[in-house]
């Protein structure tokens, strides 16, 4: 089993409901490769992150919370991952997040600190909440592909195809499609694009 750490701010007053649906979807994703250990809102902090990360070997780190160019934030305020506190902890990891804007700088810093690969968003990740399902599906899809054995380059391609699929089938809600497209365009991968679960 590959250790998978999920940092999730499911009680956030703005995005908590969305993250909760993402969590339910991840919990229902059956596989025999990864075991998720969730760090939820009530314990989402720098200390919990540091004690949860395996001392040896590769691992997967998932982040579902507010983000900025340089930080991941609990409650939209308190950093639990940032350049100044703990980016060196993610050595040998696959780092996957749907948080806003972390691909601008934080992702690059993680790679500089020997995180093997990173997938995230270089702009705001926004949700049009008329139909939440496509947004949850797209948010979780890349992690599922990684668990199923795809490499990072393939994951990005398939994630963008998944976005297109929802954009094209978003009956009666052009505004949902508009926000899915913006999220799709903000999605990028960094680091070793040949990285896959078998190399962890």
């Amino acid at each position, binding site marked *: 089993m590959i250790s998978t750490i999920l940092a999730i701010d499911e009680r956030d007053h703005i995005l908590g409901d969305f993250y909760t649906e993402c969590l339910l979807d991840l919990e229902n994703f059956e596989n025999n490769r990864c075991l998720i250990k969730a760090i939820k809102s009530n314990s989402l902090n720098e200390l919990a992150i540091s004690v949860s990360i395996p001392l040896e070997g590769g691992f997967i780190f998932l982040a579902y919370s507010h983000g900025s160019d340089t930080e991941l934030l609990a409650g939209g305020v308190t950093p639990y991952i940032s350049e100044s506190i703990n980016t060196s902890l993610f050595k040998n990891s696959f780092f996957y997040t749907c948080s806003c804007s972390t691909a601008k700088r934080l992702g690059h810093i993680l790679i500089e600190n020997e995180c093997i690969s990173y997938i995230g968003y270089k702009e705001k990740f*926004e949700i049009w909440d008329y139909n939440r399902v496509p947004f949850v599906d797209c948010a979780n899809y890349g992690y599922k592909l990684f668990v199923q054995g795809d490499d990072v380059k393939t994951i990005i391609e398939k994630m963008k195809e998944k976005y297109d699929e929802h*954009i094209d089938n978003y009956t009666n*809600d*052009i505004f949902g499609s508009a926000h899915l*497209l*913006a999220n799709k365009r903000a999605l990028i991968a960094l680091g070793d694009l040949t990285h896959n679960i078998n190399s962890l």
Partner: protein
Amino acid sequence: MSTELVPTKIVVIHDDMDENYPLIVMLRDKYSKEDVSLFKHSKEGLNFVLDNLGKKMVVLLDKNFKDKNDISGLKVFEKIREETALVFVVLISANNIADFSEDELKILVNKDLFKLEKFTNDYTSIIGLIEEAVNSIDMRVDAAIEDWLMANNLSEERPILITETHQYTLKQILHEIRMETSVGRDFVKKVNNLTIELIMRNKEKIQ
């Protein structure tokens, strides 16, 4: 979304007209009584427009007012433009265009007046310009959102756009667009990007 569900308000600001004036009667016949508002004083008309920026509006505006307490039509136009570019203004004047000063013309052109028309007793051209303005408004993103809201019978209180820092109801998004805030501009940009994307991928008709 092609059917207009939310009517555009027609606001007439003119001191020579009253409720029985032929142009007002014709406009109310074409649109509806409740969607055509007449103001004989420019300040009252301006206040109505500024108090209703969340609605689709076309303003038919007289250039000159006789009452010394009124401000000119040009000043009303400028005051509207200080708040929004999304209200379409048709300026009517008894003067010939040659009678406008250079500064007045600069204001009208640079601040995006929709149409300028000489005021005569033949109202068909004015009604035609108002119809053109109404049609132009209905092609805008904010109008599409408003119609979508009505078509989907969505609660006005339910947040539908969730961003990093805020939740917005459709009404709030409409307000952001019509006030031309960064959130509103970003929303319009996303919809425009989608239109281009769908055309480029030959998916302009969403399945």
